[in-house]
């Protein structure tokens, strides 16, 4: 029989009837009527529903030049003030916003690049501060010991364990890179001294 359903007009029957489902599953069909579904239809015009007592909000003061998408007509009246752009990464971010719209790949690649520069710079900088970065505690890997790292992975049918070994590489990669560069530089200095 299998072949005939899809190749004929009727819908295949369900394994359970709706009366069985209603019994088995609490609330089955409570929102059967689309009128009871809050996001149906998608657009529901009601400018007063939200509780706002403004038509256009007051403007939050701009305490430093706030970067914004060039697809906006102006700085939005409210915005986040976390982490103002700084240093080289900040310069790259400002360029990404000033020059490229969200439609351009360059916009996003510059921002991702700035993120990497930010991480590297902030990590190096932290060693000169009272709060140096600590790979062991910041990655939370110690929880591998306290929270069954091995038994959560071994003998399970999960597929993500194949790429878990890449994670430490992503974290430690930039460090190894810097260590490598320093090592080479030191070796060169040593060679020129002895040579």
């Amino acid at each position, binding site marked *: 029989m*299998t072949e005939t*359903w899809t190749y004929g007009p009727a*819908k*295949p029957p*369900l394994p*359970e009837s*709706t009366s069985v*489902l209603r019994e*088995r*599953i609490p*609330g089955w069909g*409570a*929102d059967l009527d689309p009128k009871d*579904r*809050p*996001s149906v239809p998608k*657009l529901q*015009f009601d400018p007063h529903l*939200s*509780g*706002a007592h403004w038509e*256009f*909000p007051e403007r939050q003061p701009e305490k430093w030049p*706030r970067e914004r*998408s060039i697809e*906006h007509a102006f700085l*939005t*009246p*409210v*915005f*986040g*003030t*976390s*982490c103002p752009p700084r240093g080289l*990464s900040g310069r790259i971010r400002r360029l990404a916003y000033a020059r490229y719209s969200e439609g351009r*790949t360059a916009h*996003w690649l510059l*921002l991702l690049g*700035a993120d*990497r520069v930010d*991480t590297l710079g*902030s*990590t190096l900088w932290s060693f000169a501060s009272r*709060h140096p*970065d600590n*790979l062991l505690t910041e*990655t*939370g890997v*110690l*929880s591998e010991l306290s*929270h*069954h790292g091995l038994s*959560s992975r071994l003998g399970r*049918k*999960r*597929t993500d364990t194949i*790429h878990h070994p890449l*994670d430490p590489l*992503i*974290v430690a990669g930039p460090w190894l890179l810097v260590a490598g560069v320093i090592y080479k530089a030191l070796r060169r200095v040593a060679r020129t001294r002895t040579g």
Partner: protein
Amino acid sequence: MRAMVYRGPYRVRVEEKDHPAIEHPNDAIVRVSRAAICGSDLHLYHGMMPDTRVGMTFGHEFIGVVDEVGPSVQHLQVGDRVMVPFNVFCGTCFYCARGLYSNCHNVNPNATAVGGIYGYSHTCGGYDGGQAEFVRVPFADVGPSKIPEWMEDEDAVLLTDALATGYFGAQLGDIAEGDVVIVFGAGPVGLFAAKSSWLMGAGRVIVIDHLEYRLEKARTFAHAETYNFTEYDDIVVHMKKITEFLGADVAVDAVGAEADGNLLQHVSSSKLKLQGGSPVALNWAIDSVRKGGTVSVIGAYGPLFSAVKLGDAMNKGLTLRMNQCPVKRQWPRLFEHVRNGYLKPSDIVTHRIPLEHIAEGYHIFSAKLDGCIKPLIVPSA
């Protein structure tokens, strides 16, 4: 105050940070009592989201107590217990006036293609989030709601995103009575989408993942039929086999940018950042649904392009529906469902982690250790 801060991919720590200030007359400051880590936070944590700055505090799922209000705040008072939707929104722009709170145009200068989200990179507005002792909540008269007396804290915190999003995802599927629904992903969002599909009258709900302990939860909590995709050579063919070769009426992508199941797709997006997200689950959804069916996308993707099988979607005449969830719009109806006992969101909470140990919380949730489904964060325990 103590707050989680991002230090770079796979690295977070807790630091002493300035107490947030009222920056706009309609701001409030909320003292956080419970927060959560979301699957979306993993995209930030893995360094996938452009403009995620070192020093930012994450956290878009939180509840707490109002600690301070700006001069124009009318609906909230100091001491109110509030739940805060993950969306920052103004209430009156073109989009908010039509109920699209997740697409607000007045809160995110950094991008027009996404609204404002607490603690979710500068691409989503540059707001510090709620994995901290205190958080700035803009548009206090519009976003937060007082937590009903009868509602428990752990249910309330799940209503700020995961439950609302799963419920919204089921609505995007346009489920009709007796429809066959496949939900990809048995994380918090997928579990709630599966459970909500029944409320809309689904006739059969199937959940796909590769984590057995989550599939187990899908069976017990969401009453779903489950399949582990690693047990099948080709999960799409298996979906055809179990639906009389028709395919499902509706498929929900509750996985998003870091989908597994295809190493090349996963590594090129999650590790190398060469595409906005790994569309493995989305492509499976497109291929598993019947012609003329609907694919609901609530899994999140980055702003770069992704290798999506649009040709199949087009040739099959599919309807693709998607959005960030406009959370507050879901609440009145969801409050009823929680009160009636149809939904018990806190059933999926597996871990309660003190803020000071948040780095471990991120690792456990990211590496899926210790049967973790939903970790909550408890500030100043």
